[in-house]
C-alpha cells in the first residue's frame, strides 16, 4: 500500500526504482520508509513487519553499503532512513530477544562506518548528515545496552558486548561534547564488572587517559597498534585534535636554537612528512629548511592558531597495519554486516583473506 502511494507521489529512492524509472518499484526493491508520526489507532497488523522480514530487510540494506553506482551520501541517506524504520518497527512490537541484539549491533556498525566515510565526503549537507548520523548512533547504542541487559542470563555471552561498550568511552573522549549523555564518571558506575575488566574496555580507558593527560605520543601510537577498525573510526576525529596539541606543545616548549625536525614529528604523529608541513601551515606556523634539504619546525612562533572543528584537514594515520588491512577491513565488515557474524578484533590473516576473495572473484568470473 505504501509502495503504491509512493509510486504515485514519485517518492521512490534511487535504489527502489525498477530499471531507473522514478515511477515504478517492485516488492523486492521497495523498502519501508521511516515515518515520523504514526497514529496507533489506524495501525494494522499488516503495517508492521515481523522479525524475520526485518532481518531480511537488514541483510538487503547492508548489501547496498558497498554499492559504487551512487555517491556515498545517497547510499548513506537511503540506508540511514530505512534502518531507522526497522528500528521503529522493532520498538513498536516491543521485541527484545537476542536476534534483535544482533540486528542492533549491525546497525550501530553501519552508523560508525558511515561516520568514517562521511568525513571523506565533501558537500554542503555533509555536516548535517554527520550530525544526524551521530545522533542515531547514540540512540541505537543506548538501546543496544538495554538489550544486552534484558537478555543477560548466566549462560548467555554476547561476544561483541565489550567492544560495543568500549565505543561509548571512545565517543566521549572530549567531555565538552557530552550533550545530554551521562558523563563517563557516572556511566562507569553501572557498567557490569566483567565488561570493565575486558581487553576492549582497558584499551578504551587507556586511550581516554592519554587523551585527558595530553600524552599525544602514546595516544596516537597505542591507537595505531591496538585499535580495532571500528574503534579507529570513532577515535579518528580526536587524532587531529591530539596532533594539534602536539604541535602547540612543541612550539611552546621547544628550544628555539634547535628547530624540531619534521621527520621526527612525522614519526611521532604518524603522518607523511609533507602532510606535517601542511598541518603546520594550517595551524599558522612556518617551516624551515636547512642546507641538506631537511625540514624543520622552528619553535616559539607567535602565529599559532587553533582552527575549530573541521577546518583542520584530516591526514590519515600512516600505519602499515591499517594500510595493509584497510580494504580487507571494509570488505570483511560488509560481509559481517550482511551475515551478522562476529567482528574480529585482532589482525586479519590477510593472506588467507586475499586467497579467499581472489577465489570468490575467480569463481564468479567462471560462472558469468
Amino acid at each position, binding site marked *: 500500500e505504501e509502495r503504491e502511494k509512493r509510486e504515485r507521489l514519485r517518492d521512490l529512492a534511487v535504489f527502489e526504482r525498477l530499471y531507473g524509472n522514478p515511477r515504478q518499484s517492485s516488492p523486492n526493491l521497495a523498502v519501508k520508509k521511516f515515518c515520523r508520526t504514526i497514529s496507533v489507532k489506524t495501525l494494522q497488523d499488516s503495517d508492521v513487519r515481523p522479525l524475520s522480514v526485518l532481518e531480511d530487510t537488514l541483510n538487503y540494506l547492508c548489501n547496498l553499503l558497498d554499492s559504487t553506482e551512487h555517491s556515498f551520501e545517497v547510499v548513506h541517506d537511503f540506508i540511514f532512513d530505512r534502518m531507522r524504520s526497522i528500528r521503529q518497527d522493532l520498538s513498536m512490537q516491543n521485541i527484545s530477544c537476542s536476534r534483535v541484539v544482533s540486528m542492533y549491533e549491525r546497525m550501530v556498525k553501519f552508523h560508525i562506518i558511515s561516520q568514517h566515510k562521511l568525513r571523506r565526503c565533501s558537500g554542503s549537507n555533509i555536516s548535517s548528515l554527520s550530525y544526524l548520523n551521530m545522533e542515531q548512533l547514540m540512540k541505537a547504542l543506548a538501546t543496544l545496552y538495554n538489550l544486552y541487559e534484558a537478555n543477560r542470563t548466566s549462560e548467555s555471552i554476547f561476544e561483541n558486548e565489550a567492544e560495543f561498550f568500549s565505543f561509548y568511552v571512545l565517543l566521549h573522549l572530549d567531555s565538552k561534547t557530552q550533550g545530554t549523555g551521562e*558523563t563517563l564518571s557516572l556511566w*562507569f558506575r553501572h557498567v557490569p564488572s566483567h565488561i570493565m575488566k575486558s581487553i576492549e574496555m582497558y584499551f578504551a580507558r587507556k586511550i581516554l587517559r592519554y587523551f585527558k593527560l595530553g600524552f599525544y605520543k602514546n595516544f596516537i601510537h597505542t591507537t595505531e597498534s591496538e585499535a580495532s577498525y571500528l574503534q579507529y573510526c570513532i577515535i579518528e576525529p580526536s587524532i587531529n585534535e591530539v596532533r594539534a596539541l602536539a604541535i602547540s606543545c612543541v612550539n611552546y616548549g621547544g*628550544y628555539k636554537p634547535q628547530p624540531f625536525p619534521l621527520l621526527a614529528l612525522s614519526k611521532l604523529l604518524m603522518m607523511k612528512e609533507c602532510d606535517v608541513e601542511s598541518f603546520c601551515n594550517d595551524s599558522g606556523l612556518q617551516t624551515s629548511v636547512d642546507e641538506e634539504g631537511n625540514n624543520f619546525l622552528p619553535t616559539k612562533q607567535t602565529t599559532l592558531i587553533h582552527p575549530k572543528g573541521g577546518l583542520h584537514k584530516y591526514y590519515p594515520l600512516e600505519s602499515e597495519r591499517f594500510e595493509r588491512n584497510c580494504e580487507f577491513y571494509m570488505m570483511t565488515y560488509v560481509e559481517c554486516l550482511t551475515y551478522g557474524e562476529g567482528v574480529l578484533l585482532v589482525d586479519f590473516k590477510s593472506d588467507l583473506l586475499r586467497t579467499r576473495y581472489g577465489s570468490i572473484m575467480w569463481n564468479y568470473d567462471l560462472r558469468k
Partner: protein
Amino acid sequence: MASSYLSMGEAHRRVTDFLNRFSDAVSSQDAKSLCLIFSISSNPSFLLSLSDALITFQDASRVIRQADRYSQYADILLPLFRALQSYRLTNLVESYQAFEKAANAFTQEFRNWESAWALEALYVIAYETRILAERADRELSSNGKTPEKLKGAGSFLMKVFGVLAGKGSKRVGALYVTCQLFKIYFKLGTVHLCKSVTRSIETARIFDFEEFPLRDKVTYMYYTGRLEVYNENFSAADHKLSYALNHCNPWKERNIRMILKYLIPVKLSIGILPKTSLLEKYNLTEYNNIVLAFRRGDLRLLRHALQEHEDQFLRSGVYLVLEKLELQVYQRLLKKIYIIQKQKDQNKAHQIKLDLIVRALKWLEIDMDVDEVECIMSILIYKNLVKGYFAHKSKVVVLSKQDPFPRLTGKVIN
C-alpha cells in the same frame, strides 16, 4: 507477623483515638504531632498498634465518615490507613501506592492553608515518600519485576516542589524537597534530572539561598558539589564541597566523611594534600597511598593505589579525577630528580637528560622510551607545571633557574 489478639472494641477505640489525634493536630496547627503521624518507616509504637487495630477492625472508612471533623480529611486518612495496614503486612508496594495517594491529598490541603505551619510535616511526607518507594522497589526487584516506584516518587516530589515554589513563607521548604529529589536521582542514576531543579533554585527570583535552613544548604552544596566533580568543573566543586564541609555540623562524622570523599580528589587536583591525620580520623584510608604517591612523586605507587581500590573509586565516580593526578606526580618526580642533581652540582642541576628520566622511570617499573618522556615533558611545560624548555636534538629538558616548579594552589589544571 501475626498481630496479637485484639477485641473489636479495643480496635475501634484505637482508630477513633488516632482520628482525634489527627484532627486535633490540624485544628491546633500542631506540626510536631502531624510529623509523628506520618512517620511510618520509623515504626513508632502507636502506629504499630494502630495498624493492628486496622487489620482487626476492617471498616475504618465507616468510622471516618461518621464525624465531620474526620470526614473532611477522608482523602488523606483512608489511603493512609491502607498504607499502614499494608506496611504492617509487609506489602511494601501496596503500602507505597497508598501512601503516595495520602501524601498527594495532604499536599493539596497544605496548599490551601494560608501559613506554613505544617511545613515540618510536609518534610516528613517527602522523606517517607522516598523511603517507602525505595523499599517498594526492593520488593519488586526481588520478585523479578521492574522497579519503578522510586521513579514515580521523583515525579510526585516534583509536584510538591511546585507547590512550595511560590511567594510566601512556604518557599523555604523547597530546598528540603530538592535534597530528597537529589537523593532519588542519585540512587536511580538519573542524575541529569537534577539540572532542572538546580536551575529553579539558583535562578528563580523568589528564592534567596541564604534564607534556607543551614542543614538543607549543606546537603544541597554536597550534592551539587558532587555533580561538579562528575562534570570535571573542579573550581566549582571545590567551592561547593568546601562550603558543605565548613558549615557541616562537626558532630555529624558520617556526613563529614561523605563530603571529604569527594573533596579530597578535588583538592588533590589543585595540589592541596590532606594531612594523614585527617584521613585516619574519618577512615578514608583508600586515599593513603595516593597522597603518599603524590608526596614522593612515585608513579608506581599511584598506579598501584588506583588499581587496588578501582572498584570503590569507580563506584563513587572519582576514578577519572584521580587518574588525572598522574601529571602532577610526574612533576613531583622531576622535582625530586632536580633536587638530587642539585646536591651533586649546583650549576648544572637545571639541565636534566631525558635518558636519566627514562632510567628513573624504569627503576619505578615503568617502561617508556625517550620520545614518550619528551612528550610528557612538553606537556608539563605547556600546562605550566614546569617552567623551562626541552631540546630535541640534545635530548634534554632545561628548567628555568627561577621557580621551575610553580605552586598550583588555586589554579586548576586543564
